[in-house]
Every structure is written in structure tokens, then in C-alpha cells.
């Protein structure tokens, strides 16, 4: 039932204040307070049962409908869990208390648990993690997850270093052939110690025929031969070639020296490739044949490990000797074409002319501004207006 228009008018004026004197009738009706929405809940204000409960009772036709006590609300899952977590130790402690009560009544009051009020967390720290699905990405990193590169992650670009690597690889493979060991097991030793490398460097390769790798190696002396064979016998066998074991082949002093070097190299990565050696003494390895696929694979694998230079498939297929490997690397390491500006700057006939100016860099509009002497002014103006920092 509508209230009288006069009353509505008064209501509206009271609502909106005295700022607006005229309000149209539609707006008056709109602005009227509508108590009937609230009346639903106010109707049985004395009754504590909410409307949802009353509807439920009506649906079931009894005052005690089956199901949960409060199916439409109540505490959430986390609150319940939290309460349960809190109540469990309380129960334990209360059990202890009752047990203690039998013996000593005086202690009972001290043993009562202190009431810890609930404090909502402000950060995630210390909270139980929710949502762990047990996947690999959720687990903490293990040892197996660490990645160690096969090669030294260093690409050698000097031709001397490349030839050193090829010579070293050739000597190593000759020894492996001689000892009848699996060829690729040489890759287990990423780099040799300096005395071992020096022994390898001193060796020469003189292939009698292209295919013979085992008889191509020429040692400088008997001592080197024995040492190298002793060292390489341990590679690819049951036990790995420990640096100390390598050094034992030399003598006691060398072993000590090597030990310290090993520790040094473990502490900091080696910066100079091949211990400062610049080139291979011997060039005989270039004639070695790579027609045997096993030898070829082992050679290229070890060579790639030492140099960081890799070979595309078509090149792999076409390579048939060590010399071709070096030739391919030579083409790869071809120096970048020289810029024309460098050429012109170095050209005396052009530089001697007073009317010629050669710029190495691209000339931009601000170069023109600078030349005309207005760059500083533009810059100052831009700074003044706050357009550049």
C-alpha cells in the first residue's frame, strides 16, 4: 500500500536534503525506501531460525530434517582443519594432565596449555604448502638434475690451437688403437695434466699407410712410450685414470706437482688453452685416414670436445682424412670481411685529399645538428622541458 503523496514528498526531501526543491513523481517513487525486501527477514525477528532452515524444514515436512546441521554455511574446510590441528595437541596434553593428576595435583594447573589466539598469517612464509601435485617440477633439485656439458664450452678459434687439438686427438687415438681399447672412452678425460700433455705434444705421427693408426705413432724416447702406455692403459678400463695415478708414472716429484695443479684446476677454470702451447710440432697427423667409421666418429667426437667446433652432417659425410678436418675448420675460421670504411680510412691516396671525409659510422640527423651547432641548444631545451633525462 502506497503512502500518501505528501508523505512521499517529505521523505524525498529529507533524503536528498534541501538542495533540490523539485523532484518528479517517478523519481520520488524510485527514491522511496523499500522495506519489503528486509521485511522477509524481519518478519520473524524473534525466531532465530533462518529462512533457509525454515524452507528446508518445509521441504522435508518435519522439524528435524535429515542431513547436516547447517548445510548452507558454517566453517570452511581450512578453518575446520585448523581447529582440528589445534584440538589434537590439546587432547594429548589433557590426557597427560589427567594421568599426572593421579600423582600430583599441584602440577595440574601449570601443565594446562596456554591459550594461543588465532593470528592470521600476513606472509606465505612458514605456511603449509597447498597444491603440491608430486610432479618432477614440484620436487627440489637432485644431483641428477645438474647438467655438465660434454665439451669445455669454449670454441677455439686460433688455427694453432685447432692443430694442437687435432694432433692430441690423433696421438690419443693411436694409443687407444695400440692398446685395443674402446676409442671413444678417451672422451672421459676432458683434459690432461700438463706433463701428460707435454708427452703427447712431443710425440710424432708418421703413418706408414693411411689406414694404420696403431703403428703410426713415433715416440721421442722409450721413457715417454712407457709413461704414455701406462697412462692410457688406465683410461677406459675398470678404474678411471686418476691424476695422481698418471703422475705416479712419472716420478714422485712430478706427482706432487701434478697434485697441486689438480687442486688449482679444480679451484679455478683453466684460462689458457693447451697450457700456452701455440702450435703442433708435428704435421704428420694430417695424412691420417678417417675412412674407418669408428675411428672417424671417435676422432671427431674427441676433436669437438677439445675445440668446441662441431661438424654439420654433409661435412661429416665428406671427411675422409684429418687434413680435411683441418681444412674445414680453416674455412670456418675465415676472418670476417673487412669493412669498406676501414679500407678507406687506411687508404693514403684518399686520406691525403683535403676535401674527402670518411665516416666509419652511419651519419644520423643529430650529427647534422651537431655540425650546425644547434645540438646543444636542442638538448638544453629538451632538458628544460623535461623531455629527456
Amino acid at each position, binding site marked *: 500500500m502506497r503512502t500518501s503523496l505528501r508523505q512521499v514528498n517529505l521523505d524525498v526531501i529529507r533524503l536528498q536534503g534541501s538542495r533540490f526543491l523539485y523532484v518528479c513523481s517517478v523519481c520520488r517513487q524510485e527514491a522511496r525506501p523499500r522495506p519489503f525486501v528486509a521485511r522477509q527477514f524481519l518478519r520473524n525477528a524473534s525466531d532465530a531460525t533462518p529462512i533457509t532452515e525454515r524452507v528446508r524444514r518445509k521441504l522435508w515436512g518435519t522439524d528435524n530434517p535429515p542431513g547436516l546441521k547447517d548445510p548452507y554455511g558454517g566453517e570452511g574446510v581450512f578453518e575446520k582443519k585448523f581447529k582440528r590441528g589445534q584440538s589434537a595437541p590439546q587432547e594429548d596434553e589433557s590426557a597427560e594432565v589427567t594421568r599426572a593428576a593421579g600423582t600430583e595435583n599441584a602440577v595440574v594447573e601449570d601443565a594446562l596449555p596456554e591459550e594461543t589466539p588465532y593470528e592470521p598469517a600476513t606472509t606465505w612464509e612458514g605456511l603449509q604448502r597447498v597444491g603440491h601435485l608430486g610432479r618432477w617440477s614440484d620436487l627440489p633439485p637432485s644431483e641428477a638434475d645438474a647438467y655438465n656439458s660434454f665439451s669445455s664450452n669454449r670454441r677455439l678459434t686460433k688455427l694453432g690451437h685447432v692443430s694442437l687439438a687435432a694432433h692430441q686427438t690423433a696421438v690419443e687415438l693411436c694409443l687407444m688403437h695400440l692398446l685395443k681399447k674402446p676409442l671413444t672412452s678417451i672422451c672421459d678425460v676432458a683434459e690432461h695434466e700438463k706433463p701428460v700433455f707435454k708427452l703427447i705434444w712431443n710425440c710424432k705421427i708418421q703413418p706408414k699407410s693411411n689406414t694404420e693408426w696403431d703403428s703410426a705413432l713415433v715416440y721421442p724416447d722409450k721413457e715417454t712410450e712407457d709413461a704414455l702406455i701406462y697412462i692410457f692403459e688406465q683410461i677406459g678400463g675398470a678404474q678411471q685414470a686418476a691424476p695422481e695415478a698418471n703422475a705416479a708414472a712419472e716420478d714422485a716429484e712430478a706427482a706432487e706437482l701434478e697434485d697441486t695443479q689438480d687442486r688449482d684446476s679444480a679451484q679455478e677454470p683453466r684460462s689458457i688453452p693447451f697450457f700456452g702451447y701455440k702450435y703442433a710440432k708435428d704435421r704428420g697427423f694430417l695424412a691420417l685416414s678417417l675412412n674407418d667409421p669408428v675411428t672417424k666418429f671417435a676422432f671427431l667426437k674427441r676433436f669437438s670436445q677439445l675445440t668446441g667446433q662441431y661438424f654439420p652432417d654433409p661435412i661429416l659425410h665428406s671427411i675422409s682424412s684429418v687434413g680435411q678436418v683441418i681444412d674445414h675448420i680453416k674455412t670456418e675460421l675465415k676472418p670476417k670481411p673487412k669493412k669498406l670504411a676501414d679500407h678507406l680510412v687506411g*687508404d693514403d691516396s*684518399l686520406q691525403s685529399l683535403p676535401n674527402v671525409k670518411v665516416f666509419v659510422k652511419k651519419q644520423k640527423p643529430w650529427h647534422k645538428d651537431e655540425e650546425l651547432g644547434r645540438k646543444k641548444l636542442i638538448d638544453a631545451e629538451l632538458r628544460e622541458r623535461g623531455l629527456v633525462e
Partner: protein
Amino acid sequence: MPLKGIRTVTAARNGVGAFILQCKRLDFHYCDWAGSSRGMVSFLKHSLPAFAKENPQIEIRVSPRPHKHPVIKGHYINGREKAVCVRNLEPEQILQKANLLKEASGEKLKRTKKPVTSINESVRGIWSPYHGDLRTI
């Protein structure tokens, strides 16, 4: 005081007495990478020293313009610029273009519609309503 007419003297003409080349600067732009600059690079390497020596009154600037076609740009004393793209041209053709820019006046190219042009004023003079016979209407 008798009035004296302005005496006609010889107007300044470029080339009469002195010749001032209109082109003051030539910019050569090239790209180190692009193939269309091959001729330009060759020209700059081999022909530019001779060209610059022949034309000491022209300032020559060489600068790279990466990933763009090669261009010769002429700057003239009337303040105008002329640019010629020399992509894929041979060094000889580029030399021709450089000479073209060198010899240009810097003015916009105009189409000559009349067969005869003269910078001399007409012998007959300009018609004036205040001179000559006044005819009665």
C-alpha cells in the same frame, strides 16, 4: 637637376668572369652487406680518389648506410639537395651519376616548352597605358 637614368651594366652571370660550381658537397652512402652496393663499394675503393682529386672544390663525404640501397646526394649552394639512387649500378655508371650531380645547378628540373628562351629583356619594351598616343573614345 637633370634626371639620370640607371645605367645598364652587365648582369652577374655565372661563368662570365668567374665560374662558381653550384654543387658544394657530395655524400656517398653505401652498405657493407647488401649486394646492390657492390658497384658503389668498388667505385669508392678505386674511382673515388681520382674523382675527388679532379674536383677539389666539392666536399666529399663517405658514410655507411646499413641495409639500404647506395645513394649519392648532392648539396647545392642554393640550399637544395638532389639524391640519386645507384643500386646495382656499375662503377662507371656511378661515376656518370656523380658527374651529373656535380654539374647540376641545384634547381628543380623544368620542362622547356618554348623553343627559344632568353634572359635578355625585350627590345620593344613593356606596354604602358600612360605612354604613347591617347586616343579619344
